[in-house]
């Protein structure tokens, strides 16, 4: 692959003394063979990702970018602390990261509204991408990302680490092997924690100095509104800036649901449900409580609710359940007879990162490649739209349009705030 080849050529032609460790003579991965990564977004989630990427011996993290100046420094401290040097550069603008020819990939962990857009911008700049979920704000934006990564040959992985978690593969295999019988229902519970039910009442304030916090960058594609510290702090509670609770956890569980059906390139054709929204006048306009039913053409149903985080597959011979902290249970006992369930805790992330890095070298599709992620996120967005519109929606997975509902089709994409575009 080009990045390795170029660096190898550079090392072999450079007439100077290079430390043995840098060439991999002490068993380490030679600098010329390391994948260089820049992190964009240094909030808590991406700090966790960075810590995992740093543990990979063939990775060299070199950049930390964020619209919060203090987070840039947090990223630099983490990276420099790991390598014992001061090489990590900090950036406010992602353009400066993407201009660096020495960076092979970016690790995107920003607010939801930036994920797809930054992925596309990065693809155009020739970078491979590991991107946090939910990766899109709309179905249209997601499809644009699929097209863009195809056009530029980008290796892209959605940060749904459960897809590479042995526990999730285990329950998928149990279902595929018919141990629960004929599958009829997949129950996905996304949890009511994480502050989804809170609220805030943002008041316009003077925007901070952009050198300290660049509000315009933070806002990104979202419709303009005046700065409010509460609006920034509670961005997840509003459709303008976040994709909501179903998107947050659904990206994981619905991916496993599609995987276990062995049909990851289509999706349910009908969505209906009920939601309660907060009505106390605050910023929170996402579902407070919800129940969604999505039906595949073959009759299998997906249920979505805010119960304790977990995933259950029910068939005519029994069920298997996986809780987010890793416990696997089943009824009747024969479902698991002769099997030893592996540990399935959600924090098992390394296999997914490893898959991304290996695919960067092989140029193969990742475990959670764009088309898979698009179909998963389509389920999410359809569910959200059914709740927001308060009616049953019929979906055509081939045309990626709603049937007989133009108001719903009008919400398949949304105009981005300038200068951003897909």
């Amino acid at each position, binding site marked *: 692959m080009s990045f390795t080849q170029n660096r190898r050529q550079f090392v072999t032609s450079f007439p100077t003394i290079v430390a043995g460790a840098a060439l991999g003579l002490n068993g380490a991965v030679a600098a010329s063979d390391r994948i260089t990564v820049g992190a964009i977004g240094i909030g808590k989630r991406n700090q966790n990702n960075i810590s995992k990427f740093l543990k990979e011996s063939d990775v060299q993290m070199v950049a930390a970018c964020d619209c919060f100046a203090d987070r840039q420094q947090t990223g630099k401290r983490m990276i420099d602390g790991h390598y014992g040097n001061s090489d990590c550069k900090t950036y406010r603008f992602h353009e400066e990261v993407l201009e660096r020819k020495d960076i092979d990939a970016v690790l995107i962990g920003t607010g939801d509204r930036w994920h797809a857009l930054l992925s596309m911008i990065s693809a155009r700049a020739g970078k491979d991408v590991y991107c946090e979920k939910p990766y899109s704000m709309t179905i249209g934006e997601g499809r644009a990302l699929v097209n863009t990564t195809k056009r530029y040959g980008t290796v892209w992985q959605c940060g749904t680490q459960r897809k590479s978690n042995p526990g999730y593969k285990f329950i998928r295999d149990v279902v595929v092997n018919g141990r629960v019988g004929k599958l009829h229902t997949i129950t996905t519970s996304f949890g009511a924690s994480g502050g989804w039910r809170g609220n805030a009442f943002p008041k*316009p304030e003077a925007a901070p100095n952009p050198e300290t916090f660049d509000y315009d960058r933070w806002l990104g594609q979202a419709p303009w509104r005046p700065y409010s510290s509460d609006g920034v702090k509670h961005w997840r509670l509003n459709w303008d800036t976040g994709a909501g609770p179903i998107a947050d956890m659904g990206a994981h569980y619905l991916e496993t649901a599609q995987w276990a059906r062995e049909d990851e390139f289509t999706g349910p054709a009908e969505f209906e449900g009920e939601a309660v929204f907060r009505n106390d006048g605050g*910023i929170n*306009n996402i579902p407070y409580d919800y129940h969604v039913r999505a039906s595949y053409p073959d009759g299998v149903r997906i249920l979505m609710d805010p119960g304790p985080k977990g995933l259950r597959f029910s068939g005519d011979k029994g069920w298997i359940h996986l809780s987010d902290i890793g416990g696997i249970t089943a009824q009747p006992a024969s479902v698991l007879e002769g099997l030893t369930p592996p540990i399935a805790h959600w924090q098992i992330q390394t296999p997914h990162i490893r898959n991304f890095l290996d695919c960067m070298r092989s140029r193969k599709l990742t475990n959670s490649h764009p088309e898979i992620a698009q179909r998963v996120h389509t389920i999410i967005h359809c569910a959200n739209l059914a709740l927001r519109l308060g009616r049953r929606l019929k979906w055509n997975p081939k045309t990626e349009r709603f049937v007989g509902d133009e108001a719903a089709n009008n919400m398949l994409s*949304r105009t981005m*705030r*300038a200068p951003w575009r897909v």
Partner: protein
Amino acid sequence: MSTLKHFQYGDSTGALLQLDERISAAHSDPAATQKIERELIEVLESNASLAAKQEACRRLGRIGTDNSVKALGSLLKSDDPHLAEAACYAISRRESKAATGALVAALSRPADAGLVAIANLLGDREAAGATGKLIELSESYDAPVRDSAIAALGKIATSEAVAACRAALDRGHSEAKHALLESAQRTEQRRLG
């Protein structure tokens, strides 16, 4: 709707929730939906705040028809780029000639975020009728305006638009490289039907 007319940033969002519920309830009642659209247009044509007009535009994006294009066309030409962007949000869902015409007419606005948003939208619509003006803008000294025009030309992908992208590439604008890739893909898609 009178509450919406007086809506300001920081106000309770209760009125917005009620409006959304009213729109949902009117889904299978065209007359009721048209009435809501007329009321939203009234908000746009009043001296309501930017916040109120933004919220009205959001709803027009869902239920608006060509009846709202005239009012949105005025916003597209507004001195306030935020208002022009809000109008883009609403008019982007209208695929009619009238809507495209309003967008093309608004390309004469000053070089600001509103103009960038309009150029982006014309690209998304593959609006060949905007080609001439977009070619002019592709030579703008304002980088966001220039790049948005080049990107739009790549999506329009007519021979004239592609030639303009090539010319932009010759002038050293990197956006043209991506626009040409876009045009190649769109041309192929059109060829395949």
